[in-house]
Each structure stands twice: as C-alpha cells, then as structure tokens.
C-alpha cells in the first residue's frame, strides 16, 4: 500500500485529504496519477493541472519517480509561503 495526500486548494477541490492505494501495479508517480484519474473521473479537472507539484516521502520529485510499498505520495499546488 501507499499513502496519497492532497494539500491546500487541491485538497478542497477534491474534498479529500488523502487515501490509501494498493501499489502492486504502480511503478511511478505517473502511474499513481493515472490510477487516481481512472478511479475518480470527477477529479480530472483538478488533477490534470500541469502546475501541480508532487513529493514522494516528503521530497519534491519528477513524474517518472519510482514508487514502492510504504511510500507517502503528496500532490499539491505551487507553494506560496514566506
């Protein structure tokens, strides 16, 4: 299993803080993204935003980053702190 988290505007748009996914067939962040789009078609408008960032185990990564059981994968909008 992997843990998927959503933050800020994206969390509100999806009305979901996070979920758990069976990762047997998921090898990269892109696979996770595709899986979410298939499972939740209503999320397409928000998850297909090209500006979204993704972190695996709390480090920013690129879409081709590998996924392994136990990983924490977070999707979120560009950051606006400071």
């Amino acid at each position, binding site marked *: 299993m992997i843990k998927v988290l959503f933050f800020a505007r994206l969390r509100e748009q999806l009305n979901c803080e996070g979920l758990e996914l069976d990762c047997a067939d998921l090898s990269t962040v892109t696979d996770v993204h595709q899986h979410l789009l298939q499972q939740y078609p209503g999320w397409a408008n928000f998850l297909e935003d090209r500006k979204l960032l993704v972190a695996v185990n*709390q*480090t920013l990564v690129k879409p081709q980053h590998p996924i392994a059981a136990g990983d924490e994968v977070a999707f979120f909008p560009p950051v606006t702190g400071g």
Partner: protein
Amino acid sequence: MISVQTADFDVAGEYAALTAGDVDAGAVVLFVGRVRELNLARQVTGLLLEHYPGMTEKALEEILAEARSRWQLIRCRIIHRIGRLTLGDQIVLVGVTSPHREQAFAAAEFLMDYLKTRAPFWKKEMTSDGEFWVDAQEKDEVSAQRWKDQA
C-alpha cells in the same frame, strides 16, 4: 535552527540568540515578512497558512544546508508561522550571521527565495469578498532560478 509554529516570534530575542557569545560574526542580516493589507489590489483582512507537516521541516533543513554549502555562515535561523494571521502580523523570519556582509545578505536573500518556492506552505487570503488561495507568482520562481544559474 528551524521552527514552524503558530506562535509569534521576538526579533530582538532572535538577534540576541544569533549573536550571543560570538565575536566572529561581523555581519548579521535579519529579514521579517509580514501580512500586508493590499495584495494584487485585493483588500486582505487576514491569512490562513497551511503546511505539510514533516515535509516542511525537511525542506527548510535542506534549504539551510544548501545555504551553508554556498556561503560562509556562522549561525542560521528560520521561523515560519502557520495558522491564522491578521494584518501586520509577522509571518516569517530569516536570520544569518557571517564574518562578512556580502555573504550574509546573499544567504538571507537565497533562503527567502528558496523558502518561497520550495517549502510546502500555502496562503489563503481572507478578504471582504471571501476566502481565496493565493496563486504562486512567476516572479518568485524567477528570483529562485537566478541562484541556480549562479551555482
């Protein structure tokens, strides 16, 4: 040292801590970011700051390590507040000490530029027209990018 906290911070106390017992730090730069009333022509009454617990601390530690690898720094301090803030409240403090001012100025600016584009904080503005998530600004990414070009 980094702190992510709801509580306010005391700049004089942070200055004292950055300089206590150290006679090598000829330069101290302290930056404080505050909640301002007008943002992109919207009348702001307050802010809500959300973050990604765990990743925030990790990202700030990485940013500090990067600054330490680039400049001769003696002490570094980052404080970022989360939760509900009102007009004029302090949001963020970056403090660095160095033997030399050029290093201290550059490092403080780098820390802010990287914090604004790499650390997982998000601002939601409270305005008379409702609550709005703040959009990331292109100019912040441009500011952060110039350090990469110099690396």
